[in-house]
């Protein structure tokens, strides 16, 4: 399938590389967005690919800013570099270019680590346009949006799948973007593929390819193959923030959460992009604070009922936070 060269991703025009790469994380991400005809004008963000036989060197002249999984990020005023010691992404904020330097060891199929670097790189670049990322799942119910916020393995995907029965649209499974204009927050979708474990796949009757099991024991699935509701590119309206934890009780429990604690949890979940040295840090922090103050905040203790009787349990959960599907 030929993918468009230019795509408008939440009004940011992105130019993709001319060549096609297998397992390119951007293929799935940009698929639902409109192709853009740029004419002779330049895209807002240009993605370039470079290949080398030898691993790309780790930058020696840039200070490290954060470490994430298997990758290290470095940064200075106008440049950031993300490296897994083989491949490396160079972000030039002044030129708005994202250069994916790929080591031939990975041939043309990008390993999972590189895919994560792609998401990270795009996220850093989108900050130049006032768009910030949340480590969250997002799902819409008419005029309401629900964000499930938390680190890995807190139950975001399971809850999102259970809630999706009653939803009208989904924003994302693991990441949602937001922009705050000083008054209100707009949420933007991030429809990357998402990952489920065996138990969740079984509970929601998801067909998975056993050979495509990742090291973490999860399966990657395209959102459009899982959600019964359509992709919703953006949301502007009431936002409810849920902070799930898995307790394993029989039934799920919803408890109000203070704004202060919610802000703290949000910082933890967004720690990577709010550390010192990352550009637009203060805007990001201000945006997170506004998001918490605008929204309603609840802690959700996930029970087995979400897996055993997802339709009823998720309806009760929604009602407990004042969303009536």
């Amino acid at each position, binding site marked *: 399938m030929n993918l468009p060269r230019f795509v408008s991703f939440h009004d940011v025009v992105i130019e993709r590389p001319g060549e096609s790469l297998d397992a390119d994380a951007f293929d799935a991400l940009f698929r639902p967005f409109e192709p853009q005809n740029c004419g002779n004008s330049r895209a807002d963000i240009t993605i370039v690919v470079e290949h080398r036989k030898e691993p790309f060197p780790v930058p020696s002249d840039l200070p490290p800013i954060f470490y994430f999984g298997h990758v290290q990020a470095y940064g200075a005023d106008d440049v950031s570099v993300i490296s897994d010691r083989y491949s490396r992404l160079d972000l030039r904020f002044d030129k708005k270019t994202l250069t994916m330097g790929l080591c031939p060891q990975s041939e043309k199929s990008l390993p999972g680590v590189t895919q994560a670097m792609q998401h990270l790189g795009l996220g850093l670049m989108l900050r130049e346009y006032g768009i910030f990322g949340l480590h969250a799942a997002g799902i819409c119910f008419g005029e309401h949006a629900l964000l499930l916020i938390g680190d890995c393995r807190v139950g975001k995907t399971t809850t999102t799948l259970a809630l999706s029965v009653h939803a009208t649209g989904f924003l994302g499974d693991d990441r949602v973007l937001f922009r705050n204009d000083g008054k209100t927050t707009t949420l933007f979708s991030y429809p990357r593929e998402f990952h489920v474990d065996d138990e969740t796949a079984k509970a929601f009757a998801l067909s998975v390819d056993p050979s495509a099991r990742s090291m973490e024991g999860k399966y990657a699935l395209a959102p459009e193959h899982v959600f019964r509701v359509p992709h919703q590119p953006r949301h502007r309206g009431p936002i*409810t923030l849920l902070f799930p934890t898995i307790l394993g009780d029989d039934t799920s*429990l*919803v*408890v*109000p959460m203070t704004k202060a*604690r919610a802000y703290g949890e949000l910082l933890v979940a967004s720690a990577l992009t709010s550390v010192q040295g990352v550009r637009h840090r203060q805007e990001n922090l201000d945006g997170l604070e506004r998001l918490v103050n605008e929204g*309603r905040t609840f802690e959700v203790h996930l029970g087995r009922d979400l897996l055993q009787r997802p339709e009823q349990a998720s309806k009760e959960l929604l009602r*407990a*936070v004042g969303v009536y599907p």
Partner: protein
Amino acid sequence: MAGDWITFELTDRCQLTCKHCLRDPGKRPTDLPLPLVRSSLEQAKCFLRSFHAAFTGGEPVLHPEFSAILDAAVDLDYTWHMVTNGQRFERVIDTLLERPLRKEKLTALTISLDGADEATHDAIRSPGSYREVMKAASLCMAHEIPFAFNTTLHAKNVHQLESMGLLASQLGADRISFILFSATGTKHDAELYLSARQWRNVMDRIDRLAEALTIRVNIPEGFHRKQPWHVCAPFTGQQIHVDVHGRVILCCQHAGIPRDPNDNRDIVGSLYEMNLAEACRRFLGIVHRFQEDKMLAMERGELKDDWDYFPCNYCMKYFGKPYWTSEGAAGPSAIRARRKKRLPVLG
């Protein structure tokens, strides 16, 4: 200000069987009739210039005409609040959303919380109750409805006093009120008993907690007073109380509690037989007699027990209800007729 409030014990139905419950209802469920509530509200508005209605129970939501009762109050421009156990709270929310005026006139929903964790709360109230309370708090937050917690303290939960204050604060409550557990006349009195000295210590802890928390921490009537001639808010006439049988009574503590069947000194009068003005005049007579007798007892040096310096306890003792002594509970025993053979409640 005298006559600010009028409080109705709407029903003696309840889904729970709390150990500290004061009510000792009869075999058949009783509900306060809507016409009597409406008439009382009209009279109170007319001559007392009352502006606030409070609803208790039982569980007030279980009154078969609860919505109509709310409408009777709000249509007369009353603000209102109620005390609820938080069970099946979605229905309360539905009732509030059904007619915006009901929500506009609501000052707060007071939810009963008796433990800082599920095990403690449910052991006192009923299994599953804690989760319902948490859900109720969530629903209040979601719909921007102000809410507060009432906590009855006793031996089984007093260790969690500070945790409960913190929890209330974290859940977004406007305030938490700590209520001194009154004797019920049941077997539970023995296991829930705290001595007068322990209660003074509890009061110190509440005072310190109130300074630490940003939400309001209330200490309602009942705790120790150095000066025994204390006049409580109900006895100043601030609140008029109507029990489930349509009688004006001294205060909510006196409603439905075990009594000496031959002692009706605390019953002001039935609103089926007299108007509210006459009931208020009689109320004053009872209060004056009580105060006079208490002054006499003080003069004679008869307030010897530590517990006599706990105003509500002294009042209960005076009117022949269960009360605390240094040895434990005394006074009449509860019958708990309904619990012997549980009857279905509406809901």
